[in-house]
């Protein structure tokens, strides 16, 4: 039901995007009674509601859906499962009582300031976009510089175009998708500029969003200066050397009225930090055990607040799991503590979760540092898997069976991605 806010719940989920809805459903699946989703937007669904393009759900629903369709299917499930959803509200803090239960402080448009009691809490706040400040683009501060995701919301939900002549910095998927969206809306997209020598988005998006529309992609090039007093008038672009510094001797100006930034995402962890939850420096999200519990007992995390995903289907699976364990804990079920730590080794940027238990099957999500093909994924001396390729833009998912871990004696398990030619002797 939408809008009701009771005094106490078994599980309270912060955030109503795909992670939050998945976690709430996972909690109900575990047999837990009362589950609440708190969301700051007027409608649950999170970022999916503005992602009107398709490409969602191929793994989970085995069909290709648009973002709003994926969101609506999950929202319908939350209604069917009697999950309370309160929109238009904000969680301003969480306090822990002496018995370990949590008091969630909620500011809501309808109910004012309220405290809600929770046995378990799931953090599902998602992520936000890096802005101009994160890469310190020199120049003036005119209107017309905005992140690609904000432009996406303006165009797809509010029906406002951000400008007419558009330059995009960063080749992340949102930037590529916005290049196509804005072109179809009648804007002129003058080019996408990427500081790295390769695109950060999927090849599919480079082909279908840029090449199909004749939009040029300039690699190893950046925006070196923003001009304009009230409104963007032009940007200076320049190729970069191996040190990523712009070579101003080869700079040129592009007259435009808008600069969109698609330069990366950061997990939104202010609430987690205010609780003193331990964060992983590399993912920017909480460190979690194999039950997706953070360093604060009874507080779980999933989705983009934990680490930035590229597929919503993986978010859903992770969230269902976090919700299940949060729900179990609310019912007093305690799983044995993890006793194996995962170390990210060669060409592995990070792994989530951070620890494992031999008690059950695990799914480990990881990212590589650089592209490699073909290669082998090596898990300590337990397992070796051939992979045709790895690329940083695509998360790697690995399932580990309990019988494998039972044989394991040590307390830390190292995961490496090595070239095909190495590691023949491993197993």
């Amino acid at each position: 039901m939408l809008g009701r806010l009771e005094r106490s719940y078994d599980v309270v989920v912060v955030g109503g995007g795909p992670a939050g809805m998945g976690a709430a459903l996972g909690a109900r699946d575990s047999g837990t009674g009362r589950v609440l989703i708190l969301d700051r937007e007027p409608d649950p669904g999170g970022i999916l509601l503005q992602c009107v393009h398709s490409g969602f759900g191929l793994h989970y629903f085995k069909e290709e859906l648009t973002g709003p369709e994926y969101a609506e299917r999950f929202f319908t499930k939350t209604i069917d499962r009697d999950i309370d959803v309160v929109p238009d509200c904000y969680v301003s803090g969480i306090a822990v009582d002496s018995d370990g239960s949590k008091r969630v402080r909620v500011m809501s448009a309808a109910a004012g300031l309220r405290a809600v009691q929770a046995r378990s809490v799931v953090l599902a706040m998602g992520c936000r976009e890096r802005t101009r400040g994160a890469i310190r683009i020199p120049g003036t501060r005119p209107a017309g510089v905005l992140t690609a995701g904000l432009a996406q919301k303006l165009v797809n939900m509010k029906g406002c175009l951000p400008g007419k002549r558009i330059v995009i910095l960063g080749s992340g998927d949102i930037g590529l998708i916005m290049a196509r969206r804005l072109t179809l809306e009648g804007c002129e997209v003058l080019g996408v500029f990427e500081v790295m020598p390769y695109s950060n988005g999927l090849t599919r998006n480079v082909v279908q969003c840029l090449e199909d529309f004749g939009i040029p992609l300039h690699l190893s090039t950046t925006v070196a200066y923003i001009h304009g007093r009230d409104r963007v008038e032009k940007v200076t672009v320049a190729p970069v050397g191996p040190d990523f510094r712009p070579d101003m001797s080869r700079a040129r100006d592009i007259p435009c009225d808008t600069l969109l930034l698609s330069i990366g995402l950061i997990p939104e962890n202010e609430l987690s930090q205010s609780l003193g939850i331990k964060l992983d420096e590399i993912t920017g999200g909480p460190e979690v055990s194999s039950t997706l519990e953070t360093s604060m007992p009874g507080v779980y995390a999933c989705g983009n607040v934990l680490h930035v995903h590229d597929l919503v289907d993986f978010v859903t699976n992770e969230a269902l799991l976090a919700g299940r364990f949060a729900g179990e804990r609310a019912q007093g079920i305690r799983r044995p503590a993890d006793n194996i730590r995962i170390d990210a080794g060669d060409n592995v940027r990070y792994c989530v979760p951070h620890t494992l238990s031999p008690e059950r099957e695990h799914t480990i999500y990881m990212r590589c540092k650089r592209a490699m093909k073909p290669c082998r994924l090596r898990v300590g001396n337990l397992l070796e898997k051939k992979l045709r390729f790895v690329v940083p833009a695509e998360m790697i998912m690995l399932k580990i069976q309990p019988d494998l871990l039972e044989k394991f004696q040590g307390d830390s398990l190292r995961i490496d991605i090595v070239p095909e030619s190495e590691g023949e002797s491993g197993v």
Partner: protein
Amino acid sequence: MSETVKLVCIMCPMGCPLQLEHEGSELREVTGHDCNRGAKYARQEFTDPRRGLSTTVAIAGARWSRLPVKASRPVRKEQVREAARRIHALRVQAPVRCGQVLLKDLLGEAGLDVVATRSMDRAAKETPASS
């Protein structure tokens, strides 16, 4: 005389560079693919390239001013812009249900429909700005 077209396979992130050798409209040989999906993609792109199309239309009476929609099946590549223009001319009124057909036979192609990809209820009566 045979000619060559170069494509990048988009079926998976490996992005194999494909080469299509053809004589006129006849495809002779595909090379460069690492698996069969690549060969299939090349053939499809050569004979009848199509693209999924999703966009938004104006909606009145809902909380948001745009309603997300999609073409019920892929549109011929060279018709994407024209299809988007036709869809933009649509005006709809809340409430709308996800999956509802808003326009039939887009571009005169039987079975190519424009469907809503989100449900939108009628918005509660607007509160005066001063309150």
